[in-house]
């Protein structure tokens, strides 16, 4: 097989990094929206993250997962934005998610979605981030620890507390519906 089409090794390496980054943009946007709870701020977050990643890609050194590195950068950027704006935690506006649903869901499932979204919004930031990384983005616990820059034990603790809080919130949210069905 000829290597002519691939160009020089160095250039190819840089393009490969960009290619991997490009594949992660939808996931970064999704995580950013879950963190920022606002589509415009989420895209600003992702743009800042991508710019930082390109500027600092020499710091990656192929150690660890590029995906973890990107998500870590996004998370750091979110923390920076959060401090800069010093805004109060606001729940994700239901229309933010609803407007982005491309497939109509049945009513029962729609209510379930609303509940989990609202429950997630009520979690403390550190627990929410840990749960989202694992449950939504499929990170392993050691990868999540790398993204959040905390020990694995801390991730485990945040997950445990976050999961339990979600169970409690879910149970309380389901209670009225169960009672309605009993009637």
């Amino acid at each position, binding site marked *: 097989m000829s290597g002519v089409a691939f160009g020089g090794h160095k250039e190819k390496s840089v393009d490969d990094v960009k290619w991997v980054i490009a594949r992660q943009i939808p996931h970064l946007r999704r995580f950013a929206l879950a963190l920022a709870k606002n589509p415009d701020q989420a895209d600003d977050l992702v743009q800042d993250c991508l710019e930082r990643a390109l500027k600092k890609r020499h710091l990656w050194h192929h150690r660890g997962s590029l995906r973890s590195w990107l998500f870590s950068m996004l998370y750091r950027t979110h923390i920076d934005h959060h401090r800069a704006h010093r805004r109060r935690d606001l729940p994700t506006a239901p229309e933010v998610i609803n407007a982005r649903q491309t497939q109509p869901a049945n009513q029962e499932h729609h209510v379930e979605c609303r509940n989990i979204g609202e429950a997630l919004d009520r979690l403390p930031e550190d627990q929410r981030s840990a749960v989202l990384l694992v449950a939504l983005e499929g990170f392993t616990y050691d990868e999540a620890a790398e993204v959040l820059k905390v020990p694995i034990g801390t991730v*485990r603790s945040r997950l445990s507390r976050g999961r339990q809080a979600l169970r409690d919130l879910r149970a309380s949210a389901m209670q009225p519906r169960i009672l309605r069905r009993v009637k």
Partner: protein
Amino acid sequence: MTRRPEPIQEIDLLAYADGLLEADVARKAEVERYLSEHADAEEFVTEISAQNDDIRAHYGSLLSEPVPEHLTAVLRSEPAQPVRRVLSQVAALAALLLAATSGGWLLGQKGQDAQWHLSDFVERAATFHHAAAIGAASPAAGGDRMLQPLGWLNQRIALELAAPDLTTDGFNLVAKELLGPEDDPMVRLVYQSGDSTTINLFLRPRWEGAGSGVGKADAEDVAVRYWLDGPLAFAMIIDAATPEADHLARAVREAVGRARLNDGVPTMALSPVSPVPAQQRTDDRQKSLQAPRAAPTPNMQDSPQLRLN
């Protein structure tokens, strides 16, 4: 001799529910054996799995959305485009300012000429801010004034005004420069916080009109505050939505006030065409240092230009 299995812990159950034991067949089998014997653990795992399903369903459709062009453009290393919302909001600010100034309420200015001066100043400040935000070079005033922008300003206003200290609010002074045409320049002081929030503070001498209060123009991620204080006009532009814009404007005004009290007051009328000679200022300052500190002169204290809200 066979190895005793490690006891099943919560993290095993979480990992099982999160699908992280697929590659660890032995541990997965131990967890499944445990689940078959413990109904409460089985219920826990079922709930965690349901949480995961709900979370993925909640955000799942976002993955299929087309990626906005400005995000993919970043990877193509294209020249920075003014795609940030903050930049489009500067345009919105310009419209706000235009509406404000054409409405005639700007700081209660007296007379058409004075009104034009302040609105022009704030609009020019917004333009310089915009140029800095997109990385474009701003027209710098030439000559020696480039070196000492505050020195030039102090010469014009006959005060020893230092850059306001905003460190207690988390902002450090990172740049100062003189911008604009030779015959009507302004000073820009740039402050940044640890999280890269930037304050552009523009100052220019002013000689016309009286004013009170702080004018405001806000867009989502840009806040502008502008006011007159003694011989200076100020425009403060923050490139982030911040509920603290009013607080920061107040901090700047207080810092300027402290500087004035510390350094005495001008003893002569201000004129745009007759800056105080450097030697005279030095002499005045020497006298001020030698004499006991006196209260500010009545004419300065009583000046309506200093009675700002």
